[in-house]
C-alpha cells in the first residue's frame, strides 16, 4: 500500500465508518439520556428554566473559587489545552474548509502561525496534564486505563496535526493520513468513554441551571 492509498483509505471509507460509529453511538446515548426525562414538578415555577439553563452553561466555564484554590494547576492547564484544542479544531483553515464543504457552513479562520503557536501550547499543556496525573499519588490512584486511553486519543490528533503542518514525517500523504486516522480513532471511541462529556457536559449544566432557574435562585 502506498502512502497515497493509505490517505485515500482514511479520507474515504474509514472516515465514513468513523463518522457512522460516532453519530450512531451518540444518537443512542443521547436519546436514552434525554428520554429518562424529569419527574413532573407540581410547584409553580418562580423563574425561567430555559434562561437559567443557558446561564449555567455559560457561567461554569469559570471555575468556582473553591476549585481554583484547591487545584489551580488543573484549572490553568485544563483550560489551556481545552481552548487550544477547540481553537485548532474549528479555526484552522483546512478544518474550516472541511466543515464548509461537508455541512455548507463556514466562519473565518485564524492565521496559520497563530494556530501553530496554539497547537504547541496545547501539546505542552497535555503533556503537563499527563505528568501531573502520573506524579500526583491521588490522581494516579484514581486513574483507570480508560483515562490513559482518552489522553492518548486526545494527544495524537494534535501531535500528528503539528507533524503534518511542519512536514516532519515524509511523504506528506502518510503524515496527513496518520492525522486523519488518529481523529477517526478519537471519533470511534468518543461515544463510549468519558469523552462523551464533549456533549453531555453542556446537557448536565443546562439541566442543573434549569432547575435553579425554575426555582428562581441564582445558579
Amino acid at each position, binding site marked *: 500500500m502506498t502512502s497515497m492509498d493509505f490517505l*485515500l483509505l482514511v479520507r*474515504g471509507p474509514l472516515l465514513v465508518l468513523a*463518522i457512522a460509529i460516532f453519530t*450512531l453511538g451518540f444518537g443512542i446515548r443521547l436519546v436514552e439520556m434525554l428520554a429518562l426525562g424529569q419527574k413532573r414538578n407540581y410547584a409553580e415555577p418562580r423563574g425561567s428554566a430555559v434562561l437559567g439553563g443557558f446561564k449555567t452553561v455559560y457561567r461554569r466555564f469559570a471555575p468556582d473559587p473553591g476549585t481554583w484554590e484547591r487545584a489551580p494547576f488543573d484549572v490553568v492547564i485544563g483550560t489551556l489545552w481545552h481552548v487550544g484544542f477547540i481553537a485548532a479544531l474549528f479555526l484552522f483553515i483546512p478544518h474550516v474548509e472541511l466543515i464548509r464543504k461537508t455541512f455548507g457552513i463556514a466562519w473565518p479562520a485564524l492565521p496559520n502561525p497563530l494556530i501553530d503557536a496554539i497547537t504547541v501550547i496545547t501539546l505542552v499543556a497535555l503533556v503537563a496534564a499527563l505528568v501531573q496525573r502520573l506524579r500526583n499519588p491521588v490522581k494516579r490512584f484514581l486513574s483507570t486505563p480508560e483515562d490513559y486511553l482518552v489522553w492518548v486519543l486526545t494527544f495524537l490528533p494534535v501531535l500528528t496535526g503539528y507533524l503534518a503542518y511542519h512536514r516532519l514525517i515524509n511523504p*506528506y500523504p502518510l503524515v496527513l493520513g496518520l492525522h486523519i486516522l488518529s481523529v477517526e480513532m478519537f471519533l470511534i471511541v468518543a461515544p463510549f468513554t468519558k469523552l462523551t462529556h464533549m456533549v453531555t457536559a453542556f446537557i448536565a449544566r443546562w439541566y442543573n441551571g434549569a432547575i435553579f432557574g425554575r426555582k428562581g435562585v441564582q445558579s
Partner: protein
Amino acid sequence: MHDRPTLGETLERQGVSRRGFLKFCVTTASLLALPPTAATAIAEALGQARRPSVIWLSFQECTGCTESLTRSFAPTLENLILETISLDYHHTLQAAAGEAAERAREEAMHANEGQYLVVVDGSLPGPGANPGYSTIAGISNLQMLEETLAGAAAVVAVGSCAAFGGLPMADPNPTGAVPVSKVVRDKPVINVSGCPPLPMVITGVLAHYLTFGRLPELDEYGRPLAFFGQSIHDRCYRRPFYDKGLFAETFDDEGAKKGWCLYRLGCKGPMAYNACATMKWNGGTSWPIESGHPCLGCSEPDFWDAGGFYRALSVPTGDIATTAAVGGLLGAAAGGAAVVKTRRAKADAISAHRPITAEELEQQL
C-alpha cells in the same frame, strides 16, 4: 559511433560560447544543491564527456514527456544537451522506422554494453498482465525493457507514468499497468515524475550522472531530492494568502483576480513535491498556479485517483454529511427502541406487582 566528439566539442560546433556553457554548469550545480565549486567539476566532466548513448523507450504514454523535453524555447542548453547525447533510439524523434529502428537499438546496446542509459516514458503492462496491450515491433513492453536493461548502466523513468504508473495505472487499470521500478531489480532507477516533468530536471540528472558517474541523492520515491525536496506549497508565491486565509472560491471571482490561494479549488500543493514553483515552465515564463489553476499534484504517486482534482485536500472523499445524518437518526431510533424496552419492562414490573400486607406475609412465614 566510436569516434564520438566530446560534449564540449559539440557545443562549440553548435555555437555555444564557453561563457554560456559555464553558466549552464553553474545553474546545474545550484539546482542540484551542490557547492559552487562543483560547477567547475561539472564543466570539466561535461566538456570531456563523450556523447553518452541513451536508449529511450516509450511504452504506455501520451508523448507529453517527450513534448516537454524537446519543446523548443531555443536556443537553450537543455535542448543542446538533449541533442548532444547520442539518442540512439527514440520512436518519436528518430528518423528510422520499422526494422531499421529496432536494429539501431540493438546496435546501440552492443556498442555501449554496460554504459548506456535507458530512459523510459510510460508505464507497461505488468508481468501478470496481457502483454498484447502494448507492443513495439511485435515485442511486448516488458520483454523490450528486460532486454534493453541487461546491458544498461541505469534507468531513468521519465514522467509519472514511468515513475508511478500514471494514467494507465489509474483505477480500474485495465491494462494491468505497472511503473518501471516494479520490473527493474538489479539496476539503479531514478524517477523523474511529473505529468510532464520539468525539462531541466532530466538534463540535471544526466549532467550529474556524467559528472560524478552516479545518480544524485534520491527521496523515498526515488526522485532526485534536489528537485523534489520541497513541496509546491512551501515555495508557492500564493502561500501568504493561504496563511492569511484568503482564497479564490471560483476561477473567475475577485479572489482569483487578486491572485489569492487556490486551496479551496483543489490545489494539491501541500502534498506535491516538485520544482515547478522555482524553475517554472517554458523557459521560466510561468507555471500552472501562476496561470490561475490549482496544482494537480502530478508528480505524486496515484495522482489521478487522489480524491478529485478540484476538491480541497482536507475534504473527505466520502459523503460525511449524509453518513452523519443517517448515523444520528439510526442511533436515535436505536436509543428510542432501548427506551421503549426499558419503559415496557418497568411497566410490566409495575403491573406484575402485587401489594402484600403484613398479615399476608406473616401467614406465609
